[in-house]
């Protein structure tokens, strides 16, 4: 899970930020349309998981994304 959180954090390019697995994606500071694409790209490259916009709805938490890669 730590590796997953680091991979998510890398997409925000903010080394000082703290995130938790319970965080809702849209509520993480700095999340925007570009970060969404970067997360899709990272999940596909690192975990071979291809997600769509439905998987990135306003209620999605990092835990929900993490569960998808299990």
């Amino acid at each position, binding site marked *: 899970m730590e590796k997953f959180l680091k991979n998510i954090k890398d997409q925000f390019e903010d080394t000082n930020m703290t995130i938790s697995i319970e965080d809702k994606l849209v509520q993480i500071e700095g999340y925007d*349309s570009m970060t969404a694409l970067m997360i*899709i790209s990272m999940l596909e490259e690192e975990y071979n998981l291809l997600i769509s916009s439905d998987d990135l709805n306003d209620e999605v938490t990092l835990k929900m994304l993490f569960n998808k890669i299990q």
Partner: protein
Amino acid sequence: MKIAKFFPQKTRSNHDIVEMHPDYSVEKISKKIGISNRYIAGKDEFASDLGSNAAKNLFIKYNIDRSEIDFLILVTQSPDYLLPATSSIIHANIGLSNKAGNIDVNQGCSGYLYGLSLAKGLLKGGISKNVLLITADTYTKYISNEDKSNKTIFGDAATASLITIKDANNIGEFIFGTDGKGVKDLYVKGGALRNTGLKPEIFMNGPNVFNFTIRVVPELIKNVLDNNNISIDEIDYYIFHQANMFMLNHLRKKINIPKNKFIIDMESSGNTVSSTIPIVLENSEINFSGKTILLAGFGVGLSWSAVVIRNYGL
């Protein structure tokens, strides 16, 4: 193939976008998508104007006798009118012969490939001798004032390509595909008959369009290589629709295309829809003459196409 391009005078820099949207991190985003400038059609400048100017540039650049052009194909998704075809307006503007046919093709990011395939068919079928293929779009007119994302991506442009039987003989086998279930992932809802009361504004579901390209493009490339009996290493240059740098780099890595063979050239003009591929081909910094080139377009529709051209320009 002989190609020329035309950009409107007005530009939109990253700085301009920041001024319009002070809270928007445009520098960060434009660095990722590889676009720092876009050209914007003026208030009274439309696809027919851009397309006519590209054709006029072509005639001057290559000293072309316009009376010898016997077919005009225009690829556009931002027509001057619902009818007639915008190519009829261009036909008159550039003084083509009354014996020259014309047709509009409503395709976007895969549009140049569609135009090339129709040109090849007209030439190989003995119907035409000199086909003028124009791409022209003014997508920026579809972008609402609040839509900072699409402002960052899209720019306006036109290109004109003269295609003869010699060129057609070098154009290989095409692959086409459509997934109409994704129509609403990139569309302009208003402006035509279904929603007459709505302003014609563009909507793009970025994650879904990205998802679509990751699903479709690697297989498209594999299939077009197979259909043309050529290996991935035998292609000298890969020219994909210049959607945005981030997406292109993801695709390049996924398909295992060497960096030096994969052209990314949109920094100064942005995503110009059906014009991106001919803009790259026209780029005088790279000598494509005699090379084997793979072209691939994908996007709005959702639509995709690819082809291999051998001995380009010979």
